[in-house]
């Protein structure tokens, strides 16, 4: 099942660089996992997975202790009776949703989230969403998207969710210019970014997803889109189909990434170069000072990335350019060429890029490379540690605020800590 190929991809302004494309066993989460952070972000939304006991078990495992805090997600577990006939299945879904809406009167937006089983039995969730929307509007709006493993990898669940919101966004009258920052960010990061944009004269600034379901930002030909996360290809395409245009930029990781990201927006707003430099100087200085504390432990260290979130390439760029780490392999579950163009241009040629996965072969390559630190999922981390390799588990990079100047030091710290720990332990 291992089909590997090295095909060149074209990158703006660069020679095409080879990417190792693999398929085989993927040691990754499916898109359902995105629910775990999205439901914290959209505070009046509920995510109902239509799936199997496996889906419920996955969410439980991924959500850890959060599951006990009455989170706003659940699974409608398909059972034998549902498999008997599709009509029955829709009735059952309506019953479950009615019970849910009754039990949770605080819900304003309900996502029906497709899973592998619901897709294989071809349960039409988009039709179900329309039907249920008609029934529960205006109190509850019902949308659908797929978080299944056969369609989505990990963070792509957020992409599918946000893309489902785009048709619901109101049209912006005229061609008024506005900035739409896309991708769920920690609120502390959002607030920092808002202060920067205000100082740069960029505005009005809106976020997708917002904190309330009812407050969907308007969109139109004047909307400029700045991606805060790299895994949002479908959402971007949907936004562009509504007339918005993307501001190309690397992602706001590290001091360099944050400055380039903010500068791209400021330039689109015609902010003079001198004012940009002046406005960002204090943040840059703070970020650099925070990074300096970790540089000694990271500089010259070799790092290997297993694919997980699509954050790997921007993270590798940050670690190589700002922390002087050496890249061995940078794996990503999916490489979106256009969105990643600015990042790839900054990535050293020495790094091997891989897309997709055959986990056994990749483990072989990792062992051959003998990196100083390996970024991987929780299924691989302890086994690799037991083999004597230092690891950084990657899920934390999705849940922790890492974007912006004031998180740059924390971000470097996430990679420095496992090395520090290994140095300290006398066991």
């Amino acid at each position: 099942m291992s089909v590997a190929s090295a095909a060149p991809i074209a990158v703006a302004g660069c020679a095409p660089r080879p990417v190792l494309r693999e398929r085989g066993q993927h040691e990754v989460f499916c898109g359902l996992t995105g629910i775990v952070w999205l439901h914290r972000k959209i505070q009046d939304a509920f995510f109902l997975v239509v799936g199997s006991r496996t889906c419920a078990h996955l969410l439980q495992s991924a959500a850890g202790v959060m599951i006990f805090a009455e989170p706003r997600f659940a699974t409608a577990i398909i059972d034998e009776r549902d498999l008997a006939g599709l009509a029955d299945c829709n009735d059952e879904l309506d019953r479950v949703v009615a019970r849910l809406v009754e039990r949770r009167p605080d819900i304003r937006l309900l996502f029906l989230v497709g899973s592998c089983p619901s897709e294989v039995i071809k349960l039409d969730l988009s039709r179900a969403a329309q039907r249920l929307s008609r029934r529960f509007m205006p109190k509850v709006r019902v949308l659908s998207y797929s978080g299944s493993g056969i369609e989505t990898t990990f963070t792509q669940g957020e992409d599918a969710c946000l893309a489902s919101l785009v048709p619901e966004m109101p049209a912006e009258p005229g061609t008024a210019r506005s900035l739409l920052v896309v991708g769920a960010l920690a609120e502390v990061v959002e607030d920092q970014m808002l202060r920067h944009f205000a100082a740069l004269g960029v505005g009005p600034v809106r976020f997708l997803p917002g904190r309330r379901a009812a407050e969907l930002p308007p969109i139109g030909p004047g909307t400029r889109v700045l991606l805060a996360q790299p895994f949002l290809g479908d959402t971007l395409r949907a936004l562009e189909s509504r007339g918005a245009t993307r501001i190309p930029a690397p992602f706001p990781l590290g001091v360099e990434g944050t400055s380039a990201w903010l500068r791209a927006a400021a330039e689109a707003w015609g902010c003079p170069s001198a004012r940009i430099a002046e406005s960002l100087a204090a943040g840059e200085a703070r970020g650099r000072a925070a990074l300096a504390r970790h540089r000694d432990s990271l500089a010259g260290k070799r790092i290997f990335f297993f694919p997980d979130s699509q954050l790997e390439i921007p993270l590798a760029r940050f670690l190589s350019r700002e922390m002087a780490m050496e890249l061995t392999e940078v794996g990503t579950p999916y490489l979106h060429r256009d969105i990643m163009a600015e990042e790839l241009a900054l990535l050293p040629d020495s790094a091997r890029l891989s897309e997709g996965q055959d986990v056994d072969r990749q483990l072989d390559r990792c062992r051959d490379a003998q990196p100083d630190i390996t970024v991987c999922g929780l299924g691989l981390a302890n086994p690799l540690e037991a083999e004597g390799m230092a690891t950084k588990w990657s899920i934390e990079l999705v849940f922790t605020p890492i974007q912006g100047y004031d998180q740059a030091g924390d971000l470097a710290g996430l990679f420095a800590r496992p090395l520090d720990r290994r140095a300290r332990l006398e066991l």
Partner: protein
Amino acid sequence: MQLAVWTYEGPPHVGAMRIATAMQGVHYVLHAPQGDTYADLLFTMIERRAARPPVTYTTFQARDLGGDTAELFKTAVRDAYDRYRPQAMLVGASCTAELIQDDPGGLAKTLGLPIPVVPLELPAYQRKENWGAAETFYQLVRALAGPHAPPPGEASSRRASGATRGAGRRCNILGPTALGFRHRDDVAEIRTLLQAMGCEVNVVAPLGATPADLARLGEADFNVVLYPEVAGQAAGWLKRSFGQPCTTTVPIGVGATRRFCAEVAALAGLPARAEDAALRMPWYSRSVDSTYLTGKRVFVFGDATHAIAAAQVAAKELAFEVVGLGSYSREFGREVRDAAKAHGVEALITDDYLDVEAAIAAAQPELVLGTQMERHIAKRLGIPCAVISAPVHVQDFPARHSPQMGVEGANVLFDTWVHPLMMGLEEHLLTMFRDDFEFHDGAAASHLGAKAAPAELGHGAAPAAPSVPAPAAVTPHAVAGDPIAWGTEAEQELKKIPFFVRGKARRNTERFAAERGIGVITLETLYDAKAHFAR
């Protein structure tokens, strides 16, 4: 469709993974989409295993569904065999692959691998994790030990030769798996116990066993079944095929351990075992310090084996009163109902944690013995709690020796269950002195974690919880339109009652007042109600 936030058990293929991961030299190829590898981290993180589970996933995607998923499966099996060279393989489908009907068993057979390949039929939309584990273990045992079974009607050669020596002291220990609650230490404890009695342990399975070990199962004289949920089916087959009797007592608690030893002695033709000097539990329980434990109201929930055993220990060995007994193991519903009847309560057989929460709130116990889920329910309700059964979090795979079974297991149970009650009492003493300058009313219960809200029935939700109306049963005194008010003095007096019985007192008093049409509860009402209910 069933609406679920929390599930007590995973899907059946996770049960199969628990068997494969427990063993050596077995590889499991699972026809499954991307994402099902999440289950790996249960083993690498919760159980802290140092190696990846021996499972290969085919990781089919939407674009594969056109037709070549069967080929994908065959390639995965061939590659896994070439890479890992297992002694035996398991092949099967996860819930999604069950729907696309590729027949893993038939496909694997066409490859003609030189090792036993055991196909698994695990109906993911009907069955759950423990059933999957039991079925997988049974299929493996049948496939590997089966060829060594004597023809029907003929005694096995091993048993025949043992009989001539006048001793049948060789046994297998069956049931311990990966991700089993305290399985590692239970095995150590029971192995020591059996050896001290003069029994020889032939094979422990599935934990640590190889396929070759399973092939030797028939050489034992009898089987020790530690966890009927996992090993019951296989033990039944071994009994039929090899004539091996098996133990029926699960040695959790002092009495059960004694009965277990008597059972083993009878099966092995050995003298009964003398009392162990390391058994401290009976004396601890008889010591005067334990007097306050008498009649403590306890609610028990877990898998059938642990719940039934815990209820027995609670009632007979700690002198608690069992006010609730239940299990999520539907397969063992009859056993749980029988046990509940013996304690004079109605059994609760459910896998819906909201039902369990409602039952606990209604029973107003002073101690909850349950799973990780009951730990959180008890935390919400401000009731002391100890964990007795899977599912559990990482802290219940401890580094220290911590069995539930046998002699040391009984000691562990005493400490584990009494500790939260002691903490509750300490907590009460602290709140008694709440007006002292050192203690303030907002101080959280020490055993509830630093962030817990002040323990008050029905209001102990974790701070991260969104504003959600709790089920009505959890807030019995907060019924909409409740006309009963509390007088200031009575309210003050209520706060002097230990927090873990305060909810019951509040509820009883309100019921007392309601029945008598009393609008405002005074100090008098409170004590009238106390007298009324203290019978």
